[in-house]
C-alpha cells in the first residue's frame, strides 16, 4: 500500500502531513497549504505538496446515485474508474473516457482532464462531466456546471487540484453493448504511415492508439503497431480474462530497465506474430489497461524512479518534429520502454488549463539517470516549444517554469482561481521560479 504523497513515477520524494476525509459534509482542515491526493497515478510532483498538507481524497468513495436508464452517475470524487466499471458495466455503461489505468479517482480524472484512446471522438474526461461540487478553504461549497459557476467549472477541469477540493461529481457514462471490443492491429514502417492509418481510421474506429518501437533507427525510425477497436456485442464463445493480478513485490536496487533490456523488448515486441490481427477480440481489461494486471509495475525502475514525458504537437509538421524526437532518444541510448503515439481530435477541452489540443501526442518513460536524462528531456522540450506544442503537467516532474508558461499562456488567468490555501510542488516549481 503506497502512502499518500508517493507519485507514480516514484520521483521526486516528498514528505507531507496527511489529513483523512471521513465525509463529504466536513469542512476542510485548517492548513495554510494543502492539496487533494487521489490514488497517486500522477507521475510527477503535481500530486505532491512537499513539506505541507495533503488531503486523502481517495477516502471519499461513496456512490450517490446511478440511473441505469440514462447512464448518469453521481459519486464522491474519490471513487475509482474501476469501481464505476464494476457497478455500471453489468447494466451496459462504461466510463466515457478512460486513461491507460482504471485505478484513477474521478476527482483526479477531472483535475487532470485525462484523455484516452477515443480522444478524436469523445474529447477528454471533462467533456462528459455534467457537474461537480467544489469545497473551498473559506468554507464555501460551489456547485459547478457548464451553466452554474461556469468559470469555476472551467478552472477546475484540468486545474490540477488547485482550485479547491472536488467533493462529488456527476458524470454521463457511455452506453456499451458489453465488456468486449472488436478491432484489428497492424504494423507500420514509419511515422508517415502512422499518420495515414490514423487519418483513415478516425471515422470508423472509436479507439485508436499506436506503440512505437524506439529501437528503430534510420529507415525504421518510427515503426510500430497501430491498434484500433470498437465496443462489440459479447460473442457467444467469449470467456473473460481472470481477474488475477500480479504485484511487483519489491523495488530492485537498480532499474531493471536499461539499454539492453529495452532494445531486446522493443525488437521482440515489434516482431511478435500476434502484432498483426485482422479481426481481434479483446476484453476491455487487456485492451484499455494492459499494465493494470501488474500492480505496482512502476517499481521496476528501481529506487530512483522514472520520468514520464508526454507532449502534444500540432498536426502540421508533427511528422518532422516527432522524427527528430525519436532520433534524439535513440541517439541518447536512454531509451523508453513504452512509447505511445496517438492523434488528438478537434473536440475542444473545457478546462482553462487542459492539456489535450488538436495534434499528435507522444508519451515516453525514462529511467531516472539524473543529469543525462534531464538534459535529454530539456532538449525534447526545446522541440515541443519550437512548434507551439505543450507538455502534460500530470506526467511532469521537471519542466522549466519558462516552458510551462509558454505551453499554458492562460496560467495567469487560471491563477486567479487557485484557492489561497491550496498549492502543489508542481505549481510552485512552474510559477514561483523566476521567468
Amino acid at each position: 500500500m503506497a502512502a499518500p504523497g508517493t507519485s507514480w513515477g516514484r520521483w521526486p520524494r516528498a514528505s507531507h502531513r496527511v489529513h483523512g476525509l471521513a465525509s463529504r459534509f466536513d469542512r476542510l482542515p485548517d492548513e495554510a497549504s494543502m492539496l487533494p491526493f487521489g490514488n497517486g497515478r500522477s507521475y510527477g510532483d503535481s500530486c505532491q505538496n512537499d513539506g505541507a498538507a495533503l488531503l486523502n481524497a481517495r477516502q471519499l468513495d461513496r456512490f450517490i446515485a446511478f440511473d441505469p436508464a440514462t447512464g448518469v452517475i453521481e459519486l464522491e470524487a474519490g471513487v475509482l474508474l474501476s469501481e464505476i466499471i464494476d457497478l455500471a458495466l453489468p447494466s451496459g455503461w462504461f466510463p466515457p473516457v478512460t486513461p491507460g489505468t482504471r485505478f484513477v479517482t474521478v476527482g483526479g480524472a477531472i483535475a487532470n482532464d485525462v484523455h484516452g484512446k477515443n480522444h478524436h471522438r469523445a474529447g477528454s474526461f471533462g467533456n462528459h462531466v455534467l457537474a461537480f461540487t467544489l469545497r473551498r478553504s473559506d468554507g464555501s461549497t460551489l456547485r459547478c456546471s457548464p451553466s452554474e459557476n461556469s468559470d469555476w467549472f472551467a478552472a477546475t477541469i484540468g486545474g490540477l487540484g488547485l482550485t479547491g477540493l472536488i467533493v462529488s461529481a456527476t458524470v454521463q457514462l457511455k452506453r456499451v453493448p458489453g465488456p468486449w471490443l472488436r478491432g484489428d492491429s497492424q504494423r507500420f514502417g514509419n511515422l508517415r504511415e502512422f499518420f495515414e492509418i490514423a487519418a483513415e481510421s478516425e471515422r470508423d474506429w472509436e479507439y485508436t492508439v499506436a506503440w512505437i518501437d524506439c529501437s528503430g533507427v534510420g529507415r525504421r525510425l518510427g515503426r510500430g503497431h497501430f491498434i484500433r477497436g470498437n465496443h462489440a456485442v459479447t460473442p457467444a464463445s467469449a470467456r473473460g480474462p481472470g481477474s488475477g493480478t500480479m504485484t511487483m513485490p519489491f523495488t530492485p536496487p537498480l532499474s531493471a530497465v536499461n539499454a539492453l533490456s529495452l532494445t531486446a523488448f522493443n525488437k521482440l515486441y515489434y516482431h511478435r506474430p500476434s502484432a498483426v490481427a485482422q479481426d481481434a477480440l479483446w476484453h476491455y481489461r487487456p485492451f484499455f489497461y494492459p499494465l493494470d494486471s501488474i500492480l505496482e509495475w512502476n517499481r521496476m525502475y528501481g529506487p530512483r524512479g522514472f520520468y514520464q514525458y508526454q507532449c502534444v504537437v500540432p498536426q502540421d509538421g508533427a511528422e518532422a518534429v516527432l522524427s527528430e524526437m525519436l532520433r534524439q532518444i535513440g541517439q541518447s541510448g536512454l531509451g523508453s520502454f513504452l512509447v505511445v503515439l496517438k492523434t488528438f481530435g478537434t473536440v475542444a477541452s473545457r478546462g482553462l488549463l487542459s492539456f489535450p489540443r488538436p495534434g499528435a501526442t507522444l508519451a515516453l518513460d525514462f529511467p531516472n539517470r539524473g543529469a543525462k536524462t534531464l538534459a535529454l528531456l530539456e532538449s525534447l522540450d526545446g522541440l515541443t516549444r519550437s512548434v507551439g506544442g505543450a507538455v502534460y503537467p500530470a506526467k511532469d516532474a521537471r519542466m522549466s517554469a519558462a516552458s510551462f508558461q509558454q505551453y499554458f499562456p492562460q496560467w495567469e488567468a487560471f491563477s486567479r482561481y487557485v484557492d489561497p490555501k491550496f498549492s502543489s510542488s508542481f505549481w510552485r516549481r512552474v510559477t514561483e521560479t523566476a521567468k
Partner: protein
Amino acid sequence: MGATSAIAEATAREFAALGDALFLVGRNPDRLGAIADDLRLRGAPQAEIHVMDARSLTDYPALVDEATRRLGGLDTALIAHGTLTDQTAAQASSDLMLAEFQTNALSYMVLCTELGNRFEAQGRGSIAVISSVAGDRGRQSNYVYGSAKAAVTAFTSGLRQRLHPKGVHVLTIKPGFVDTPMTASFKKGPLWATPASVAKSIVKAVQRGKPVLYTPWFWWGIMQIIKNVPETIFRKLKL
C-alpha cells in the same frame, strides 16, 4: 453499530455485495444517509438508518427492537463504534477516563447483553465485536483504550462460551493498525492494513463461525510475543 466507522462501512459493503439488508446506527444523520445510499447502489436490498449516541446506555433495548422490526428479523450484528482515546488527556482526568470506558467498553457490554439474550431466544445469530490488539496487554501509551478493549475481549469470550451451545456465534475481532480517516496523520508502514482487507476477513470469519480474529493475521504472532514478555522486563519498555 458505529456504522460510519471506516471498518464498519467497509464491512457493510461486503454484506451489501452479498445482498444483505442492513440497519445502520450512528450519530451523524448526513453521513449515515450517504452510506445508506452507497450501500443500496452496491447491492443491499434495504439500508435503514438510525441515529443514536452509543453512550446512551438505556437506549439499547429499544434499538434492538427497532432494528428487528424494520428489517423483519436480525441475524448478524457488527459492533464497531468507538473513540481513539487520547491517552495523555485520559490519564490526567478520571472523568474523561470514565467517559472513554463508557464509549469503548460499557456500551459494548450492554449491547452484547441485549443481542445475546435475543439471539439465544431465537436459537441463532452472530455477534461480531470489534475489540483490539491493544486489549491484549496494557501499555503506557494507550492503557485507557487498551483496558476498555480488554474488557470487551473478556466479556465476549465469556458470552461466546455461554451462547455457543445455543447456536449463537460470538466473534471477537482484534484489528491491528488500520488506515482510516481517524489515523490519516500517522506514519504508515508495512504493518498497516486497509479497511477493505480487514472487512473481507471479518465477513469470512462470520461466515465460518470463527471465535477470535486477529486482522491482518500476523498480529496474532506479534501479540503472542508482547503478551509473553515478563512483567519485570515489560515495565521498563517504552511501548
